């Protein structure tokens, strides 16, 4: 191979590009910073969001990452004893699916409980009757929930209330995963309908022609 001298202009351009990449990585990683009161702050790079899992579906039987290969999906975490964020996210997602119409037919939307002790697959199934039928609830053994939460960089914590009850803190982001199971972005709780639609459309368009 011939060695070619790099001009100073090229070097500057490379430097700018490298800086932009680092800046983009920092911005992309920002949502994965755990809240300060949770102990050690951990910053995950986007490349590490996602991974193998095998959970129990609200439709019966098991569902694993392998079953999802070839189609993009959205996945988020919550629990049914949630007063606002979970029902609102499920509602917003149901409305977005409605707006996507046939284009969203193949989009799997997964709602994983971080509270498997209370949210059995049956309870999830009943709860999800209030939302778009395409949304699948996932529960399972505590260790399997822990594993999928770790894979998706999801933070959760039980918070005791009165009389031995508890509520839960949890990550509210909706992760968008491509057909290969790779991370491709997230929808935030405060995203408006237009932003949600744009992100979902981008996810579905990225997989190329349907079929």
């Amino acid at each position, binding site marked *: 191979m011939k060695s070619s001298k790099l001009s100073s202009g090229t070097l500057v351009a490379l430097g700018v590009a490298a800086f932009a990449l680092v800046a983009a990585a920092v*911005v992309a990683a*920002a*949502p*994965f*910073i*755990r*809240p*300060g009161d949770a102990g050690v702050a951990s910053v995950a790079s986007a490349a590490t969001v996602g991974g193998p899992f095998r959970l129990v579906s609200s439709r019966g039987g098991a569902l694993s990452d392998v079953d999802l290969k070839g189609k993009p999906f959205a996945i988020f975490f919550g629990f*049914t*004893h*949630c*007063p*606002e*964020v979970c*029902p*609102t996210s*499920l*509602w*917003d997602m149901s*409305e977005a699916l409605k707006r996507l119409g046939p284009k969203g037919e193949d989009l799997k939307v997964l709602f994983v409980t971080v509270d498997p002790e209370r949210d059995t697959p049956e*309870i999830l199934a*009943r*709860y*999800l*009757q*209030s*939302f778009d039928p395409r949304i699948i609830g996932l529960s399972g053994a505590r260790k399997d929930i822990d594993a999928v939460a770790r894979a998706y960089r999801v*933070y959760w914590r039980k*918070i005791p*209330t*009165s*009389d031995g*009850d508890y*509520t*839960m*803190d*949890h*990550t*509210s*982001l909706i992760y968008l995963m491509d057909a290969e199971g790779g991370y491709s972005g*997230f929808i*935030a*709780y*405060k*995203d*408006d*309908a*237009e932003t949600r639609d744009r992100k979902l459309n981008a996810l579905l368009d990225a997989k190329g022609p349907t079929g």
Partner: protein
Amino acid sequence: MLNSFRIPGAFARLCRRMYLEEALAAAAFAMFLLTLSAQALMAHEFKAGAIEIEHPWTRATPNGASVGAGYLVLKNEGTTPDRLVAATAEGAQKVEIHEMSMKDGVMIMRPVAGGIAVPAQGSVALKPGSYHLMLMGLKQPLKQGAMVNGTLTFEKAGTVPVQFKVESIAAQGGSDGGGHDHMTMPSGK
């Protein structure tokens, strides 16, 4: 956080073109409209001594849900501060006072010890994303359009009956009274 990067160019151009007076007039008109619709929404209210309890409402709950959230605005017209210390709601085993917040994409919720202060000549709002009454152990789902009887207990003003209006499952308590209160206006927050 990320929102601050998304200031639409068209809006910025529009701002530059508008004269200050025009902008102020538009803003004043917008405030006027907001006040009107807010007043229409706040049609139902209750009293506890000098404290006005405006529009207690709750959101319809999904199938089989055992928790719900109650919201309202407390306005203290008196000269002594008070505290909301307890609440009940029919059909809920218990009601706790909680505070919710969002931190780096994580929803955080905590019981509020000692209740919520209602300052003299001041007000406090229990609203989505913030303070709320946590209705726990619901025997029945909350159905949109229903009224739920309950009580609020204040440290000084005592216990008063209220009714929570059950709004849609999508309600966020915005001035539109329905839909998700997602403003698309650019914000510098």
